[in-house]
């Protein structure tokens, strides 16, 4: 099977496209997904191919986008509902965490809610404060839903397909910064080959092996971690990069295994620092790996401020590979 470099956007598009071909119950809805071809071009060509019935533009009504998907899923469809950016999903928080995530529990299993919320996430393009969040941990705080955040084309492909096929609600957060990034994806043309690429829910991945320090990350944090690992290698420090891929459930076994070997850890995320991804992973590590800790676990996250427009100070607020390198050097 040929393996080609493919932009993450394209991998997501391919996964969605294949699932729509595979299962007639799958449909997409969201702002500008149809005629406009998707704000981030993920649904490019879909309207033409699948028609208005299965490719549905919505008004600017996030509460309804969130809730209509729940009803449709309960009734037997498999909606893939897009929030143009994850910031707008704030307006649907109730639909997501109090309805999608709880309907099954309210009624003790009477209904399934097989839906996927897709959302473009992240910051760094001068989108300013209200449009600059990577708030996946906020959503992952709540049980009843899964949260997936791919870091490359292959994972995005396999994770989204799994998410669509799963009978639980999934929030699928796609880093805007990673959309154009090419990475290898096999040309899986038949279904069996495609199925081989499925990524199970809650399964993390070692993105780089190493012995000296564990970098735990997801989505864009993986990118910064891999860059940092290359820089560190030049100084003889071998970092292992664990991509958790899912914020709920967490594949902590993978983290612990790595940590037992390295005894040191830096957690890397794009989000704000308080009550966030780094907080949770650090807390779990110190509790469950106490005897393996040779140094404090460090966290690299965004600065604890709203994001400004002006590029230079915006970049100051963002994490980057150098900040990861610096954090590692504090503990090795």
């Amino acid at each position, binding site marked *: 099977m040929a393996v080609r470099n493919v932009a993450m956007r394209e991998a997501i598009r391919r996964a969605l496209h294949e699932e729509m071909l595979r299962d007639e119950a799958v449909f997409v809805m969201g702002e500008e997904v149809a005629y406009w071809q998707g704000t981030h071009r993920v649904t490019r060509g879909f309207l033409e191919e699948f028609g208005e019935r299965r490719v549905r533009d919505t008004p600017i*009504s996030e509460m309804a986008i*969130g809730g209509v998907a729940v009803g449709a899923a*309960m009734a037997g469809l498999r909606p893939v509902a897009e929030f143009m950016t994850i910031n707008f999903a704030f307006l649907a928080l109730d639909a997501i965490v109090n309805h999608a995530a709880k309907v*099954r529990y309210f009624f003790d299993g009477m209904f399934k809610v097989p839906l996927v919320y897709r959302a473009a996430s992240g910051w760094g393009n001068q989108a300013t404060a209200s449009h600059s969040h990577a708030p996946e941990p906020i959503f992952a705080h709540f049980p009843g839903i899964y949260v997936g955040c791919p870091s490359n084309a292959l994972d995005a492909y396999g994770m989204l397909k799994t998410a669509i096929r799963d009978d639980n609600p999934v929030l699928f957060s796609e880093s805007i910064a990673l959309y154009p990034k090419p990475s290898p994806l096999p040309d899986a043309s038949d279904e069996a080959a495609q199925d081989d690429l499925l990524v199970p829910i809650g399964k993390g991945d070692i993105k780089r092996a190493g012995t000296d320090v564990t970098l735990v990350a997801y989505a864009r944090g993986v990118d910064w971690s891999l860059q940092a690992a290359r820089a560190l290698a030049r100084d003889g420090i071998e970092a292992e990069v664990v991509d958790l891929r899912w914020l709920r459930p967490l594949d902590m076994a993978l983290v612990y295994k790595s940590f037992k070997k390295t005894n040191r850890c830096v957690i890397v995320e794009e989000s704000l620092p308080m009550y966030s991804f780094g907080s949770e992973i650090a807390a779990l590590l110190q509790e469950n790996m106490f005897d393996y800790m040779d140094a404090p676990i460090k966290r690299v996250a965004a600065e604890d401020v709203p994001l400004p427009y002006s590029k230079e100070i915006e970049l100051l607020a963002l994490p980057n590979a150098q900040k990861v390198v610096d954090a590692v050097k504090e503990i090795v």
Partner: protein
Amino acid sequence: MPSPSKDMLLDWYRQMALIREFEETCHQLYLQKRITGVYLHLYSGHEASGVGSMAALRKSDHVITAYRDHGIALILGMDANAVMAEMMGKKTGGSGGKGGSMHLASAAHNFWGGYAIVGGHLPLAAGIALEARYRGKDDVTMTYVGDGATNNGYFHESLNMSAIWDLPVIWIIENNGYGMGTEVERASGQTELHRKAAAYGIKDFGRVDAQDALAVYEVASQAVAYARAHGPAVIEHITYRYRGHGVSDKQYDSRDDMSAELRQWMDEREPLKILRDRIQAQFGDVSETLSAHEESARQIVAQSVEFAEASDLPRGRDALLSNTYVGSPLVYKTSDSIGAGSD
């Protein structure tokens, strides 16, 4: 619309008597602390609104509502035992004791539930109707929404979505005059709530006296036919709640004007009495049958209490965790040394 037969009307009375008995019993059980949930919103006074409108549906149609859901469940044919057991948080409850008063549902009856967040069920209704449209079925989704809820963003976005997608939803605004303690006049700039339909270009079926089951049925039948063929419809039901907002609504009886108001509704617009009079005017004396229905309601409800009280509680961590997800519970614990994904 065929005019309802005698049997049909008698059956409506049966349903209404059952609801009234069920709700008043719940009220007593709450006072006796045999039902302990903090939220318990009764349908007493609303009976004709639900009975008359759902009579216009066929079996494959869908129904969804908010937390004031006992009556809706019973009308659709949910077993009173399962409903009462749910009030008491029992395993045998319709929602396994997890949902309580505000979260009844029955997939078998196309009853998609009771929901506790004001307005939260409205987009779900649109989604359920979308499935019908998507699959080319002509089933409609009857959706009940309170007057207070019409002021929420969910209402606006859901009705608009139903309009542009031609979704077969009948939006029934149950205007009982209040959202908790707030009169419609103090909550809505537009106090003729059916007129809100105009903001979405939705067909407006106007206001109905919803203490009169026949009047309700008539308009509902038109709206259902319209929705089946075309798209969404709005109806406003004028009704009244006999037991305040919910059982914890203690000040209800302390406001004299309200009590007078309530007394007037009960005296002049009692839905069971109105239906009884309507039937007797058309078909002569049916008091025996009606009494039998009332007696049967008492028996059914008394038995449901017995059943519920004799039922087991859900117990233990497994009961707590189950049905958070389809499949394995994947439960997170701070002290877990292994995660869910890897083995």
